[in-house]
């Protein structure tokens, strides 16, 4: 078969573009990881991840940032759980209880789209206003609530997408065996489990990396909070504050904190993929 010259040129241009785009993306990913690792490894030590900041930590002396690691995990863990508890019923309501073409569902989806696009600093400011209104100080609870609000739209939109493509025949199949709506929900849950896993991963990624929303609400502290009303440190803020320091050792510690953050996200992503594949096994 003979291909005309102009077609060959078109094809080559397309290939060049595709390769170019791919190289840019790969280059970016590698350079980000390289920067974080090369700079972070300088200050990285067992002490960094296993101890609280000592007396002169912020001028380059002893201690680590365990406070920020634990604080981040507390906030992300609690808000992911809360987010799931709130989002799953909403998604079920939108897709199973409300009939197709419902105006309420349309309005709700629109609202979640808007919330999805709201910058996290606005959530932070909103949370801050509410906390002032109730006379609350910066606290673990404040951080958890604001991060939950931040990730609920992500949860709902991602899960909603999966649930909407859900084969309705499964509902009929379950109903026609004499199942109630509640029993059918459990079947639906199995089918959309991979979607829930993906949504959770996306949400955790956003929650753990966000600095703006926790700045006013969770605050920052050198200790690990022992109750919901105490302030909590977070990894993004550990990066943010230390990066501003004029002392090179402290800046390196910012990168070490960034390294820990990156590694946590990587571990979550990889194990998440693994879990998703396991869940997808039975998917129709």
């Amino acid at each position, binding site marked *: 078969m003979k291909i005309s010259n102009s077609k060959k040129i078109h094809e080559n241009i397309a290939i060049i573009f595709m390769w170019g785009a791919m190289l840019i993306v790969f280059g970016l990913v590698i350079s980000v990881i390289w920067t974080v690792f090369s700079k972070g490894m300088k200050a990285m030590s067992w002490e960094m991840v296993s101890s609280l900041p000592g007396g002169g930590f912020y001028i380059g002396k002893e201690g680590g940032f365990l406070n920020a690691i634990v604080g981040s995990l507390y906030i992300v863990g609690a808000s992911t759980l809360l987010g799931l508890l709130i989002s799953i019923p909403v998604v079920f309501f939108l897709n199973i209880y409300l009939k197709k073409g419902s105006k309420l569902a349309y309005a709700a989806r629109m609202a979640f789209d808007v919330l999805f696009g709201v910058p996290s600093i606005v959530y932070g400011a909103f949370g801050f206003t509410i906390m002032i209104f109730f006379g609350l100080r910066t606290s673990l609870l404040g951080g958890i609530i604001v991060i939950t609000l931040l990730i609920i739209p992500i949860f709902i939109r991602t899960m909603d997408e999966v649930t909407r493509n859900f084969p309705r025949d499964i509902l009929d199949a379950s109903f026609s065996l004499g199942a109630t709506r509640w029993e059918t929900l459990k*079947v639906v849950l199995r089918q959309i489990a991979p979607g829930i896993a993906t949504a959770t991963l996306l949400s955790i990624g956003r929650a753990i990396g966000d600095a703006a929303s926790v700045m006013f609400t969770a605050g920052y502290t050198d200790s690990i909070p022992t109750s919901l009303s105490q302030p909590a440190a977070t990894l993004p803020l550990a990066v943010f504050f230390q990066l501003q320091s004029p002392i090179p050792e402290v800046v390196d510690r910012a990168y070490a904190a960034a390294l820990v953050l990156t590694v946590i996200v990587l571990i979550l992503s990889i194990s998440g993929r693994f879990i998703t594949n396991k869940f997808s096994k039975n998917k129709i």
Partner: protein
Amino acid sequence: MIEIQNLNVYIKDNHILKNVNVTLPEKQITCIIGPSGCGKSTLLRTLNRLIDTTEEVRLEGRIMVDGQDSLGHDAEVTELRRKIGLVSQRPCPLPMSIFDNVAYGCRINKMFKKRRELIYHVRQNLRAVGLLDEIKGRIRTPAARLSIGQQQRLCLARSLAVQPAYILADEATSALDPISAKTVEDLFVKLKEEYSIIMVTHTLRQALRIADNVVFMYLGEIIESGPAEQVFHHPQHELTQKYLAGAFS
């Protein structure tokens, strides 16, 4: 026995089923035939009240299933659906293993207390549709991995497992390859010894092969119904004659 009396079904402002009166006898195959959009599927979905999930639907009349009105206010819909199994056009296994697909209905209906009984029952029903030997050793693998024909038989086994009295089949063989279609069709013939089968079909030849009774529908109305022999060979109504002659479909 199912007796449909003065059934009218409206969806939004459309009058889908118009004054349907028919009796569906027990332990026979009743084939519902008619051109597309004549209300065959709606009629099936009304029988097990799956129509309830449709938006803005209004039902009038009575459907007496073994002497009880299934459209009445006190009708137990879940029990009705257990009693009237459905095999749909495209097989739709549930997102679980082959075993769990069949066990699902038994579990929700709390049919067995002992696990051993459940396992026995599931295997029995898989054997009844000829799947047990084909899937030897794969009973715990995802149902989605079966071929389409096997999936359809799995769906049939799943319906049988909850011990229904009636089986509704909505063009249950039309999405299958010829060999699987033949297998499923033969199964229905065998099953009529124990179950009453109500089958919507688009293939007249299939109806000719297996029907004991035929209901011919046109534009939401029942034009003619009766024993297959009579409807096929001595149709009373002009529309039936035309349809059987292939004047429209």
